[in-house]
């Protein structure tokens, strides 16, 4: 580890650390709403890195990833809200959510992971919809999820009396609720980055890559491909479950609407747009795809005001339109993603050359 800590990388790390510490306070200058946006960006980094294990490392196309996020979110919501009158602490619930999401992942993955890639995609997509439909309708005859209204008044994350929902004074500095969540999220994101990095360069990570490259050869040298794929699937699901729990706590409210297919698609887009399997790329993808729509949300209306003197086009739909176009254009000019790993870039360049 100490090897790569030469002065230059030490300086770089210090710089990144400084930026990470300062960011929530700078963002707060634009209002707490921006801190929340930054928080969501980090939550999505967490989520996208979880999906990266499944899609980027193991090469499994999962279009229902958000289902595991939903499981985690509802576990948290039901165990820490007035809905059932339960108020468990977050450190107890997050693992429960992770384990349950993992269980769902194994239950879905064990019969379906032998399927061809595109079939797996549609099966996971279907699974995502099934979960959402159940969340929407499990309010009768026994009210479990409270249906489309969702669950409200979910407990914030709290350590003893230290609540993450309210502002408090720390060393004479006022730290708002969202800013506290920010530091919590950054810590978790760093953890998941380290886990991703370590997995990639491990016995399991090599097995994943081998399966991606040539599944038959991988089998022939003794890799139990089904189990190794299932492992990726289960790990991705667990991370999804944890992210869901944090989402619940941060929002204080969950409803099935937050877990529609477009959310799965969005997280997948983060992974692919950033650069599948390449951790910095995935982080970039997640941050861009969270922040860009928000910037557009706040920018599209006022810009029209300035240019045309009035709002000509509904900003909400224009925002999504630009977002969709951005996806298309990035894929057109950067088919391996914005920041692919060096190997992938080379692979692509070579297949291009072969075809010419």
């Amino acid at each position, binding site marked *: 580890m100490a090897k790569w800590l030469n002065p230059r990388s030490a300086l770089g790390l210090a710089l990144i650390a400084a930026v990470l510490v300062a960011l929530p306070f700078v963002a707060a200058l634009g209002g707490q709403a921006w801190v929340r946006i930054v928080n969501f960006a980090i939550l999505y980094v967490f989520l996208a890195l979880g999906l990266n294990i499944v*899609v980027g490392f193991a090469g499994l*196309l999962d279009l229902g990833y958000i289902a595991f996020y939903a499981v985690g979110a509802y576990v948290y919501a039901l165990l820490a809200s007035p809905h059932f009158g339960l108020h468990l602490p977050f450190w107890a619930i997050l693992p429960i959510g992770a384990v349950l999401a993992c269980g769902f992942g194994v239950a879905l993955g064990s*019969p*379906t992971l*032998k*399927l*061809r*890639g*595109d*079939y797996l*995609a*549609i*099966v996971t*997509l*279907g*699974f995502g*919809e*099934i979960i959402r*439909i*159940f969340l*929407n*309708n499990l309010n*009768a*005859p026994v009210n479990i999820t409270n249906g489309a209204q969702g669950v409200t008044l979910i407990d914030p994350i709290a350590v003893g009396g230290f609540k993450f929902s309210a502002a408090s004074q720390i060393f004479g500095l006022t730290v708002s609720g969202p800013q506290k969540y920010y530091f919590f999220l950054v810590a978790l994101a760093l953890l998941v980055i380290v886990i991703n990095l370590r997995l990639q360069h491990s016995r399991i990570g090599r097995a994943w890559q081998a399966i991606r490259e040539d*599944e*038959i050869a991988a089998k*022939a040298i003794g890799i139990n491909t089904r189990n190794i794929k299932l492992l990726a699937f289960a790990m991705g699901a667990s991370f999804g479950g944890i992210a869901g729990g944090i989402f619940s706590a941060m929002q204080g409210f969950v409803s099935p609407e937050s877990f529609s*297919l477009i959310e799965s*698609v969005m997280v*997948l*887009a983060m992974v*692919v*747009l950033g650069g*599948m399997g390449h951790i910095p790329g995935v982080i970039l993808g997640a941050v861009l795809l969270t922040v860009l729509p928000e910037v557009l949300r706040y920018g599209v209306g006022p810009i029209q005001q300035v240019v045309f003197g009035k709002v000509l*086009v*509904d900003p909400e*739909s*224009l925002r*999504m*339109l630009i*977002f*969709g*176009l*951005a*996806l*298309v254009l990035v*894929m*057109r000019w950067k*088919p*391996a993603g914005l920041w692919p790993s060096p190997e*992938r870039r080379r692979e*692509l360049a070579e*297949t*291009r050359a072969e*075809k010419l």
Partner: protein
Amino acid sequence: MEILLQQLINGLVQGSIYALVALGYTMVYGIMGLINFAHGEVVMIGTLVTISVAGLLLKLGLPVALAGGAGLLAAVAVCMALGWGLERIAYRPLRNAPRLTPLITAIGMSIVLQNVAMLVWGRNYLTFPAIAPKAQFEFAGASFTAVQVMIVLVSALTMAGLLVLIYRTRLGMAMRATSQNPQVASLMGVNVNRVIAAAFVIGSALGAVAGVMVGSYYEIAHYQMGFMLGLKAFTAAVLGGIGNLAGAMAGGVLLGIIEALGAGYIGDLTGGFLGSHYQDIFAFIVLIGVLMFRPSGLFGEKTGDRA
């Protein structure tokens, strides 16, 4: 018994629509291995174009049949152009890209089309003009409408036409050859670019017809309607074995019938625990079940590993 027959009729009607849409997915997938996520949106645009054109013509006082026919033609024309444009602009540059790249592009195009539709036609539900006859029939205790009959007939005719095209024309032969092996096909003088474009254009035309059918069946349309419809239709295509035309047709009809029966009987099956609002999960549960036992779909070819 009457209820069963009624559910079967409803399922057949809904299934015919699924089948038409599923063909669009399966043709494109069969030829280039791409899930064209934007296909559902093409269907939606077909419906909305018909609403505008037929609605306008009706307002001008044209006879119903003429206005309806013009609406259908306009929808087919617009969708064909759209399908061609999608392929040409969005997908063709990505032929050699990593497998997931065109999928993300397809998702992007789907978002773009939805929002364009919202800008053009607005956020609200639109009423589909009454271009279909309004008669109602009774048969063995089950009732069905002229619209339902029309949907089944038009779908059957369209699909028959497609089969003739695929199995009796040079273009069809070129398409079948390309789906077997694009490289070899191109060596044999098939213009692969043209074949792929044709698959998009034909699939979109079928989608437009389906869009008109959906509109006249539910009498209502919306810029988001294409999404679930596309999802179900794609499920139907996979159910039948993707890439397989007959499979898509059978899968569509089967899915429609399963859904109708499921929605009708789920209450009884679960002792009232689950109600008919679970209709949408049948498609996916059946899909997962089928793929577990037949990994290539009901009519798909077995693809074995080769060393």
